[in-house]
């Protein structure tokens, strides 16, 4: 699979590395070359400096042949714009983006985007963890006595 990732933060870099290890062809974009320090030395994909909402940069990154595009920059709107460009201008078959703000998720679904909100995912995960350990709460301990 050919994948273009926009944003080489912690998530972007780790995802790039995982996909690269699995043998996929990865191109990762970031506006700051310093971000690429997060990529492991074994990374065999392409790291490209450029703005992922710029069509020409996306073309250079091979978006026209890409099977998937993933937008994981810090800016929600930036991710949404890039994802729409990938989906509607370049017809990339699979487009995913990160949206911090869970309030906006409906909107993105309305625009036909597949968005993941780490805020929601993490909040649920924390709640789940807390509940599976609920046996250890003070109330339950009192009951056991």
């Amino acid at each position, binding site marked *: 699979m050919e994948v273009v990732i926009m944003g080489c933060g912690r998530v972007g870099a780790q995802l790039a590395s995982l996909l690269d290890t699995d043998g996929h062809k990865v191109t990762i974009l970031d506006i700051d070359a310093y971000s690429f320090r997060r990529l492991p030395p074994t990374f065999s994909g392409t790291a490209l400096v450029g703005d992922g*909402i*710029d*069509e*020409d940069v996306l073309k250079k990154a091979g978006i026209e042949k890409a099977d998937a595009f993933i937008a994981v920059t810090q*800016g*929600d*709107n*930036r991710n*949404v*714009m890039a994802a*729409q*460009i990938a989906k*509607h*201008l370049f017809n990339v078959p699979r487009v995913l983006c990160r949206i911090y*703000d869970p*309030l*906006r998720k*409906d*909107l993105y679904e*309305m*625009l036909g985007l597949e968005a993941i909100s780490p805020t929601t995912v993490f909040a649920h995960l924390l709640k789940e963890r807390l509940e599976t350990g609920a046996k250890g709460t003070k109330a339950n301990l009192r009951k056991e006595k």
Partner: protein
Amino acid sequence: MYILVVGGGVVGYYLCRALIEEGHEVLVIEKDAKKCEHFLDELGSVCMRGDGCEASTLSEAGTGRADIFIATTNEDEDNLVACQVAKHKFNVPRIIARINNPKNEKVFKKLGIDCTISVTNLLLEHIEEEIPTHPLVHLLTLARENLEIVEVKILRTSKSVGKTVKELPLPAGSILSLLIRNGQKPQVPSPDTLIEAGDRLIALTPGDQEETLRKALTGD
């Protein structure tokens, strides 16, 4: 009319002021508290603090009854998203987006935001107009028809000087519609009109033929 403006920067501020003077109901949405305060001090309660890309903020601002929605921030991605929310969620009938990177004009159109104003292009055009040696100046773009209305100045060195209009290798689809000559009334050039140095021609041309038109009139 009820007009919503997203972004309280310089553009947002002066736009708001002008619209109020024209008697419209205006509300500006701005994230920055300091900028909001400035609006309050100068123009009264016409500014709401919030993120203009968020549906809840826009709902609170009464976007559902807005006649016009204008996004004026200096971030293209923010303008795009704000306009898309206004369009898809609140069905605002008229939406206008400021564009900073001229490249994004095409992107916005493809993503459903038709009315865009490219600040950078506007500035360039005005600067071009002020450069006297620049032979071709854009006056107007008819985007839907893909036509440009341009002004061409005939210099002494131009190849077309001393030729008649019918002798010029004008590109297909272009029309010389007006001739402005010093000390004379503007006239519609005929095929037999002789081109003189100092003439100014207003011409209509297909967008991709502009360079050919320039060459035909001024030569290289």
